[in-house]
C-alpha cells in the first residue's frame, strides 16, 4: 500500500484545465519532487491533495483511505501537513507561538498536556529548522527566509506522515537554500517512514535531494522517473527550454 495515492485527478477553472488526469503515488520514506514550468498546475495539484480545493474528478487516497475533498484540518489530523508557496505566518504571534498553534491541533497535541511541554516541544520544532534565535520575535518582524522555515516547523509540529512542501526554496538566496536542503534531509533521516512531497521549479536544489521526480506541463504529467533520467528526458528539456528547431 502506498502512503499517498493520486488517481486521475482533474481540475478545471472555467475553460482552463489546470490539472488534467494526473496519477502518481508516494511511498513511505520517499522524497518525491513535482516540477514543471510556471502555470503547469503544480500548486493546484497540491491544493487538491491537501484539501484546499475540490477536484472535478479523481481520487486522493491516504494510506488506502479515500480522502478526496476532505477539509484541510481533518486531513492534517490524519497526517498530511503542508506549507504554502507564499508564506502565511500568524503575524501577531511570536515565532514560537506560531508553532504552538499547530501543537494545539488534535494531532499535534496527542502527547502534550501542559503549556510548558508545548513550549518545549515548540522549541524542538524550531531547533529542527534552526529558528531558536528568533523564537520570541513576532512573526511580522522576521525575514522571508526564516518565515519559510517557520512554515515548515509549523507543519512538522503536527507530526505528519506525509509532508507537503509548496516551493520551499522560493525566494531564498543560495545560502538559505543550502541550509533548507540540509534541514529537509535531516528531517527525512529522523523519520524514515515519512513521505515528503516537494513542489518546485528551482531544479538545481531539488534534484539533489529527491528520489523520484514527476514533471507536469499544462496540467498533465509528462514524465516520471529518477532525477538523472528526468534531466536527460527530451520532453522535459523541450518544456523547459522550448522546442529545438532543427536545421539539418
Amino acid at each position: 500500500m502506498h502512503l499517498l495515492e493520486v488517481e486521475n485527478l482533474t481540475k478545471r477553472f472555467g475553460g482552463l484545465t489546470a490539472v488534467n488526469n494526473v496519477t502518481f503515488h508516494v511511498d513511505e520514506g520517499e522524497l518525491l519532487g513535482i516540477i514543471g514550468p510556471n502555470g503547469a498546475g503544480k500548486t493546484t495539484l497540491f491544493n487538491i491533495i491537501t484539501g484546499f480545493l475540490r477536484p472535478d474528478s479523481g481520487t486522493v487516497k491516504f494510506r488506502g483511505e479515500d480522502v478526496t475533498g476532505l477539509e484541510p484540518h481533518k486531513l492534517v489530523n490524519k497526517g498530511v501537513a503542508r506549507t504554502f508557496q507564499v508564506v502565511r505566518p500568524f503575524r501577531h504571534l511570536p515565532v514560537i507561538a506560531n508553532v504552538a498553534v499547530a501543537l494545539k491541533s488534535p494531532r499535534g497535541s496527542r502527547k502534550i498536556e501542559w503549556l510548558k511541554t508545548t513550549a518545549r516541544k515548540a522549541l524542538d520544532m524550531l531547533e529542527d529548522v534552526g529558528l531558536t534565535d528568533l523564537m520570541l520575535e513576532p512573526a511580522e518582524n522576521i525575514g522571508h527566509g526564516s518565515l519559510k522555515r517557520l512554515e515548515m516547523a509549523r507543519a512538522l509540529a503536527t507530526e505528519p506522515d506525509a509532508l507537503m512542501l509548496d516551493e520551499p526554496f522560493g525566494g531564498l538566496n543560495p545560502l538559505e537554500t543550502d541550509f533548507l536542503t540540509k534541514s529537509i534531509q535531516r528531517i527525512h533521516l529522523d523519520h524514515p517512514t515519512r513521505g515528503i512531497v516537494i513542489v518546485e521549479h528551482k531544479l538545481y536544489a531539488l534534484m539533489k535531494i529527491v528520489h523520484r521526480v514527476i514533471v507536469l506541463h499544462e496540467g498533465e504529467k509528462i514524465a516520471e522517473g529518477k532525477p538523472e533520467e528526468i534531466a536527460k528526458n527530451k520532453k522535459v528539456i523541450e518544456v523547459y527550454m522550448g522546442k529545438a528547431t532543427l536545421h539539418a
Partner: protein
Amino acid sequence: MVTTYLRRAYSSFAAHVFDIPPRLLALLLLSFLITLPLTGLNPYVISVMTSANILAIFGASWDLLVGRTGQMSLGHALFFGIGAYSSALLFEFYGLPLWITIPLAVVIGAACGLLIGFPCLRTKGPYLALVSMAFPLILSSIFYFFDDIFKGEFGIRGLPSFFPSLATKDRMLGNYYLTLLLLFISAVILYKIANSHTGIVFVSILDDELASKASGINVTKYKLMAFTISGLFASLAGAAYAHILGVANPPLLSLTWSFVPVIVTFLGGIGTIYGPIIGAYIYYLLDRYFLTIIIEIPYELIYIRLLVFTLIVAIIVIKWPRGIGRFVTDKLEDLQEGREIEEIMAEREKKKKKKQK
C-alpha cells in the same frame, strides 16, 4: 542552566503572546472602584458607574470575538437585547425570581451566540459586519410586530430590581457593587480564556484562517466557541442592565448599543480584554461629564453624542489602528524591550571584561 533558559523563554513567551498587563494596575483600578462610593459621591455618579461596569462586561465580550478572533460583529446589541428580553419574558410569563431568570438568560444568550455563529461562518470581514448588523434589527422588528407578547415600543416593564427591600440610595450602592462583582468575574474569565491555548488559536484565526486550517485547527469549532462565549457575557450584561433599569425595551437592540462596545474597545485598545473595561469608564466620563456638564448637550440628544463618539473612534482608528490603550502599552513594551536589550548587552560586556582579566 537549561531549565532557567526554558523558564525565561516561557515567561518571555507568555509575556509576548498574552500581553499581560501589569497586575498591579488592575488591582489599583479595582481597589479604586471599590472605595469610590465610600468617598460620599452623589447617587447620580454611582448609577453612571454602575452602567459603566455593565458596559465594561459588554465591551470585553465584544473584544474577545472581534479583537481576538477577528469575527467582525457590528450587531452585538443582539446579545445584549436577548439577555434583557429573556430575563424579562421569563419573569413576565413564569414569574420566576431574577436569581433564576438571569442565569437562564445567560444560557439562552450563549445558545443564541452558537446559533448566530452558523450563518456568520459563511461570511468574512465587511460582509460579516453587515450580516451581524442585521440581526438585532430583525429581532427588534419581531418584537414590534408581536406586540402582545413583547409589548412593542414600550417594552416589558416592572422588572424586579436586585435589592427590592433596600432604600433607593442603598439599592444603588448594592447595584454598583453587584455589577462590579459581575465585571470582576467576567473579566477574569474572559482574560483567562483569551490568554489560554484556546486564545492563541483565536489569534491565529484572526491572523490567517487558511494557515490555521493547515495547522490542523478546526476553525469552525473555534469560531463557534468564540461566538458562544461572547454571547454568554454580552447577554449577562444585558440581563443585569434590564433589571437595573427595570425595563427591557427595543432601544436595547438599537444600533447605539451595537456601536458602544466598538467605541469603548477603541478607546481602550483592541484585542486586550482589559482595554474595553478601561474604555467603558472613559466613555462614561466623556459622555456624562464632558458632554453633559461641560458642553451641556442635553441628554435627550443621543444621536449628537453618538456622532461625537463615532468621530472620536474614526480619528482613533486612523491615527492608532489598535486603539489608544494599545498604543500606550505597545510603547511601554518597546521601552521594556529596550531595557532588556540594554541589560543583555551590559551582561555581555561584563563577561568580556572578565575574560580579559
